[in-house]
């Protein structure tokens, strides 16, 4: 069965009450030989212009799959979106025709990936790859588009951009390659930028520079940013709000300072406690017990219950909804009050 599609592109200009991007009850599943993998099970989050949403979670939590669903770059099949909405400026992207979807992709919602070396095409120069955005989407000629590419390379602070525009990706360092990737993604002033672990493959010092650059670009253009990461350290400085994912669901969402001050889900709490701290030097590093859930065979009830220190009997049977703690906070834990109080059940 094909869904009804429309060619109407999302509106531009004012937003009214509608958030810039709203994911609602999104489900993504993969049909594989051993069975159906439910990678995303009812994720909802929203993003406003100029806002940074950090999506936190370990591998397999569904954070990247959600992002790829927003971009529309999942391979379907094997992927399927049986349920949910991805509203961009009020238009459900999932109902758009392929044609209209392609118009949104890259131009209005852009994405940068983890490993820039493999994410850039090895046989084309970086200048060619950046300028392609202008040639394809803006109909620019070669000379003007390369000029634009050099401007962008300057903007992401690549030294000697003019001399390096005809170099190939492998001739750059890791940090510089990620800057190229960023230059390419912001080429057409997208309204939403999705950064999928943009600093994971980089040195710590370079990580900070890249995050700074992203924050700066965001301030200049007021774009909304979704920052996908498993690194809590990266998040604190740049994010406005955080959504923590576990087993394909959001287990906690909150403004960034609330989460650091008082986590309301045992998983978030575990994550925070496992950050190395200078003042606890010499002590054993905390680790969450157990392993991430097997997506083919999810635990019943709360997916986190096998690893949870707060577990009660009903956690095994009842899947917790995302309880509303306040207007801006939610936690998918039956015992969020106890977690907030710091009382180890």
């Amino acid at each position, binding site marked *: 069965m094909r869904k009804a599609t429309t060619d109407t592109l999302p509106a531009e200009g004012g937003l009214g009450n509608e958030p810039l991007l709203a994911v609602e009850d999104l489900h993504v599943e993969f049909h594989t030989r051993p069975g159906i993998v439910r990678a995303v099970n009812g994720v909802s989050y929203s993003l406003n212009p100029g806002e940074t949403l950090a999506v936190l979670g370990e591998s397999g939590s569904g954070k990247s799959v959600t992002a790829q669903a927003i971009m529309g770059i999942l391979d379907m099949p094997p992927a399927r979106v049986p349920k949910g909405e991805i509203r961009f400026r009020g238009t459900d992207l999932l109902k758009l025709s392929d044609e209209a979807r*392609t118009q*949104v992709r890259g131009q209005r919602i*852009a994405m940068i990936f983890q490993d820039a070396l493999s994410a850039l095409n*090895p046989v084309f120069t970086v200048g060619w790859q950046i300028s392609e955005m202008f040639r*394809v989407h803006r109909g620019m000629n070669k000379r003007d588009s390369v000029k634009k590419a050099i401007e962008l390379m300057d903007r992401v602070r690549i030294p000697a951009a003019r001399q390096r525009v005809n170099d190939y990706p492998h001739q750059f360092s890791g940090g510089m390659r990620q800057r190229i990737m960023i230059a390419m993604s912001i080429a057409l002033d997208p309204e939403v930028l999705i950064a999928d672990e943009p600093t994971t493959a980089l040195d710590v010092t370079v990580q900070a520079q890249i995050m700074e650059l992203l924050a700066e670009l965001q301030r200049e253009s007021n774009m909304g940013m979704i920052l996908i990461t498993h690194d809590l350290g990266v998040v604190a400085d740049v994010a406005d709000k955080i959504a923590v994912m576990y087993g394909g669901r959001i287990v906690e969402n909150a403004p960034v300072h609330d989460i650091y001050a008082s986590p309301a889900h045992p998983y978030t709490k575990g994550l925070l406690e496992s950050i190395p701290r200078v003042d606890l030097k010499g002590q054993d590093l905390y680790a969450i017990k157990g392993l991430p859930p097997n997506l083919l065979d999810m635990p019943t009830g709360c997916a986190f219950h096998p690893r949870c220190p707060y577990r009660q009997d009903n956690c095994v049977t009842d899947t917790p909804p995302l309880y509303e703690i306040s207007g801006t906070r939610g936690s998918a834990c039956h015992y969020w009050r106890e977690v907030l109080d710091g009382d180890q059940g």
Partner: protein
Amino acid sequence: MGRYVVRRLIQAIPVLLGATLFIFAIVFALPGDPIAALAGEKRQDPNIVNILREQYHLNDPLLLQYWYYISGIFLRGDFGRTFAGVPVSELMAGKFQITLNLALTALVLEAVVGILLGLWAALRRGKAIDTIILASTLLLISVPPLVTGFVLQLWLGVWLKQQVGVEIFPIAGITAGFKAYLLPGFVLAGSSIAYLTRLTRTSLVETLRSDYIRTATAKGLSRRRVIGRHGLRNALIPLVTYLGADLGTLMGGAVITETIFNIPGIGLQIYQGVYLREQPIVVGIVTILVLVYILANLVVDLLYAVLDPRIRYE
């Protein structure tokens, strides 16, 4: 780059010497006497036989004979004479062109058919057409050119002509010009087409799984551009290598095809040369083939650096 080419050419010398010595020794070891063969069943004058044996150095040991021969080629460009007195270079000149025509026809057929079928299969991976193409390549690989040659001769040469009344594919010879090369070209390319189809399919499927293809999609490029520019450009790299190296194989493989279709190229010539123990012909042709092989591979390696900027030669 220049130094690289020179180094490769120097490396080619021992390869060339080794290959020619090997062939020379094999023909040397063949039973039978070429001078005796000249006269067929008739009796020969022992004096003349002796003069001829002297003239062709047949009484000398193997290595000395080889030295006379190879120094002739490299120092004087002289490929020697056949036992009937015809210069080998003269004999090869026209025939080499014919075989080159045949091999190039086969190479073009291989490239066009193989790459197109491979792309088709890759883009319809898992669908019926993919399975059909893969099964056909298996068939093409398993059936030797001896069989495909005669079968196609019968079907497309004889039967089709009877049906339409016009000769579309000549059965033998090269008097019909370009179209005479089509059928033998296809037979010669047969298993190469199959291998190239499979290689193309694998290469494109693998390329389309890469991260940079995902990036290209995320840039909002059309599927056509993602596959046609970003995918194909990368998927082509191993195919060029294969095609280049295959030119030498095709020229060598022409022996059977030329015999089936009675094409007077070096393949047929080498066959007759072996049959008549005409050492100069056999070794001369092999020397040229080895040279073609080495040069084709050198060109491929240089092309590789053009296609893949990550590779640099110094």
